[in-house]
């Protein structure tokens, strides 16, 4: 089965990145948002089709290699798509596609009309950057795309400034920390390059065993810190809550679904392809670090979320907790651990995306996502409330939602390994989750509504993205096979790549 004609399919790896990258400047030049938004939307959805074609191509384990400009690796830059890359590409493009559907409507209360097309351009650039990271097979190219996505993310965050000036400090915070992280990353690359003379990841993997031990330790440590910062790993998480809380809500949706996920991808990719040590980077055993740090993130993120007064902020801290869970799974290691991490990664994007998309709809209707301002939501916006309930239950990990599948898969690995501290920690943290989720429910269901609250449920533009993500949360909780199968296949391929 092919989704695309062969001539296009042959260039799919590069098209999926280049298409949004090259369209972005064009869109920035179109002053009229009514043209720019649909165009961005079309590009995003074409990308979705290409990504699915790639997934289709790599499903059976095929690795697609594309030499950029016909310069073959390791001289030229190689784009290398395996199932892991394709899976992430699908996640990224689908997130982009869904966000693009509600982008034009959702941004309305948060940004002046004249600036909007530039926001759409930044959005496409960010998408292109993130896609580049997962598609490319060249380590330096990863850095380049990391910068593209980071720079455009700063713009996305700062765009929230017309609603709340604190968006500017949030963007500046992230700028400083993100630049630091990128510097660490590039220093790490430099160390590896010095001892091996190559930047192609597969090639690096071949040559590293012969390389000097100390340089690899230092280089991989730098790489790890750089990635950890982008992944908002404790204690480098500081940028994330403000970035999510003050960026325009639709863009926060996109960031929550994609930004940190790519860092998790990088950890898996580097550990596997470059260092041949699933769960470890180089000869430094970072895997041992992950369960304790991940558990700390679980507890810390959930605990702070309990105190949040704003829905977006609450969801942001919840994201830190969920990233913790992914890191725990990654740290537990093995095929089952990596599979569990990926199951969490996909499911969390769906769940949290659904929650943020609902928050966008609420923001659009009411102009605020403060918990206090959401009183009476259950009667005034019943559909939005229903999706908040679905997402909330999934975050708690209630059976028949995707969140349960995520949690169960990690707990199972932990119990299987006899790691009772981790298993117990994950279970206890779900109680904290209940506490913060219940704050949303009590605020929306039990509090008396304000008399002057704007009438009407979600704007129709939100129906499709919110509905699809909500449906995904439930469907993948009951019929989890697609995500579990994809994740397990990826994990098996990863393990197969290592002797």
């Amino acid at each position, binding site marked *: 089965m092919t989704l695309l004609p062969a001539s296009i399919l042959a260039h799919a790896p590069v098209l999926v990145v280049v298409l949004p990258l090259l369209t972005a400047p064009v869109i920035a030049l179109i002053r009229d948002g009514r043209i720019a938004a649909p165009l961005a939307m079309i590009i995003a959805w074409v990308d979705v089709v290409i990504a699915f074609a790639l997934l289709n191509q790599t499903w059976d384990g095929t690795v697609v290699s594309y030499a950029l400009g016909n310069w073959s690796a390791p001289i030229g830059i190689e784009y290398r798509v395996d199932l892991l890359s394709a899976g992430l590409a699908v996640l990224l493009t689908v997130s982009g596609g869904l966000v693009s559907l509600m982008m034009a409507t959702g941004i309305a209360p948060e940004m002046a009309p004249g600036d909007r097309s530039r926001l759409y351009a930044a959005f496409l650039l960010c998408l292109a950057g993130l896609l580049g990271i997962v598609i490319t097979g060249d380590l330096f190219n990863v850095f380049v795309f990391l910068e593209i996505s980071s720079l455009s993310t700063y713009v996305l965050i700062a765009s929230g400034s017309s609603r709340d000036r604190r968006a500017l400090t949030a963007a500046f915070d992230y700028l400083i920390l993100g630049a630091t992280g990128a510097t660490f990353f590039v220093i790490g690359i430099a160390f590896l390059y010095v001892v091996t003379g190559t930047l192609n990841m597969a090639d690096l993997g071949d040559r590293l065993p012969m390389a000097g031990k100390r340089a690899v330790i230092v280089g991989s440590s730098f790489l790890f810190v750089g990635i950890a910062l982008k992944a908002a790993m404790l204690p480098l998480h500081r940028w994330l809550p403000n970035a999510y809380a003050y960026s325009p809500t639709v863009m926060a949706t996109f960031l929550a679904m994609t930004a940190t996920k790519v860092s998790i991808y990088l950890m898996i990719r580097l550990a596997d392809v470059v260092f041949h040590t699933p769960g470890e980077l180089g000869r430094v055993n970072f895997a041992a670090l992950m369960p304790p740090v991940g558990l700390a993130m679980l507890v810390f993120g959930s605990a702070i979320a309990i105190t949040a007064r704003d829905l977006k902020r609450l969801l942001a801290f919840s994201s830190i907790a969920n990233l913790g869970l992914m890191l725990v799974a990654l740290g537990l290691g093995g095929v089952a651990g990596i599979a569990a991490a990926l199951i969490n990664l996909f499911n969390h994007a769906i769940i949290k995306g659904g929650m943020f998309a609902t928050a966008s709809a609420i923001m659009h209707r009411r102009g605020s996502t403060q918990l206090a301002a959401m009183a009476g939501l259950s009667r005034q916006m019943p559909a939005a409330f229903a999706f908040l309930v679905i997402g909330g239950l999934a975050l708690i990990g209630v059976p028949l939602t995707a969140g349960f599948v995520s949690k169960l898969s990690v707990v199972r690995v932990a119990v299987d390994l006899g790691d009772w501290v981790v298993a117990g920690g994950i*279970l206890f943290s779900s109680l904290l989750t209940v506490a913060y989720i219940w704050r949303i429910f009590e605020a929306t269901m039990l509090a008396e509504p304000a008399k002057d609250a704007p009438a009407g449920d979600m704007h129709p533009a939100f129906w499709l993205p919110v509905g699809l993500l909500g449906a995904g949360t439930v469907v993948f909780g009951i019929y989890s096979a697609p995500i579990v199968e994809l994740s397990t296949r990826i994990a098996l391929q990863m393990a197969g790549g290592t002797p």
Partner: protein
Amino acid sequence: MTQHELMLAAVLLPFATALLIIICGRFPNLREAVTLVGAGGLALIVFKLISSFDATTATPLVLAEILPGFRVMLRAEPIGLVFAGVAAGLWGLNSLYSIGYMRAEHAPRQTRFYACFAVALGSAMAIALAGNLATLFVAYEALTFATYPLVVHWQTEGAIAGARRYLAYLLATSLVPFFGAIVWTWIATGTLDFTPGGILDGKMDDGLLAILLFMFAYGVGKAALMPMHGWLPAAMVAPTPVSALLHAVAVVKAGVFTLLKIAVYIFGIEVIGRGVGDLLVVVAAASVIAASLIAMTKDDLKARLAYSTVAQLAMVTLAVALGEPIAIAAGILQLVMHAWGKITLFFGAGAIQLATHKKKLSEIAGIGAKVPLLMIAFLFGSLSVAGLPPFGGMWPKFLLLEASVDRHMVVLTVCLGLSTLLTLGYLVPIFIQAFFRKPHDEDPHHLPEKDEHHHEEGSLPVLALIPPVVTAAGCVVLFIAAPAILGFVAPVIGLGVLP
């Protein structure tokens, strides 16, 4: 219909009813008709399931596979059918009572009330028909969430606080020890299916099994084993029909039913009997006595009944912990008898409140003359709960005594005798107060209190009077029907000759 279709219908019908209730929300009479038709239909379906049950042809019905090996499946078996029969049989009566009660109280949000009630019943059916521990857990959690809106119904500050407590207890127990124990069992045995004779024998040593049994006993918070009983009195903030069906039948009985299932089909009765359950016997017996003593101190009728429930539930836990076929038989009968007895008492307490606006033991002096039929029904219920002939409640107490004598547990035998006395001690005063004391206003020693809550005299709607009378009569009928129930479950619990 085949057995599979019947099982599916039993689980789905309540959910369909809930949907129809929401659709008919604007027309109260139609809405209540839907509830009654749903309840009647469910009773019919369950009756057909029971009458057509044949152990040799019962096959599982797999509905979904959440993770490989973690299946959602239904399977009819005698103990579950008994529970389903109790819950389905009482739903209709309780609905009649609800209609009388809620209308007399002019309660708000009645559509949500009836819809959640139906969903709770659907969850209870799924618990009853669950074919493995995974399914049971899924339905168990669904029941918790479905009943939350019922507990918080009045949405006063007290109700919100009580409902929070309700949720905190039930989720803390189910998400940590219960879920942990399930995953542990799963990893240790590779299956979660309910298998006659149990699946754990030989997979762990007895010390670990005892720990696992405790994890289940406290993990199933709905069984309200002290000190995890705090949610039950807290949940009494709910409207009385909720307390009646959910906290005398569906929710608490789902708890002890779960324990019975785990004892019979996961551990195996003999495994528990060889010493694994001994410590739990002590805890459960202590819970029986302590809760009975606390009940005596409660002036509020519903609080008194709540603690009585805690004591009576602990008897089922005790039966489970004894690990004898006779004891398990006693547990199953206690599940049935206590449900009918206690629902009579709750109906009575609610009806007293409707008729006289009085909620406390100290206030109800002399009301017997006003509502004689009701108070006689109340007496029947009391005697049945205490375990006197000719009421159904006698059988479980009798069998439990027999089991304790069999095991040569003298202290336990004394405890059981004491508990019957205590039960009489906290229930009969209600009847005495109502019939043999003069009302306060006629009592020269008692000055009438200046109470702003002094309403005009209430009236007792006939719909709130019929159900308690019927259930009280049911207690007598069950005295005769008990051997039939025993005969139905005897094969699966290895009970040879009926006592």
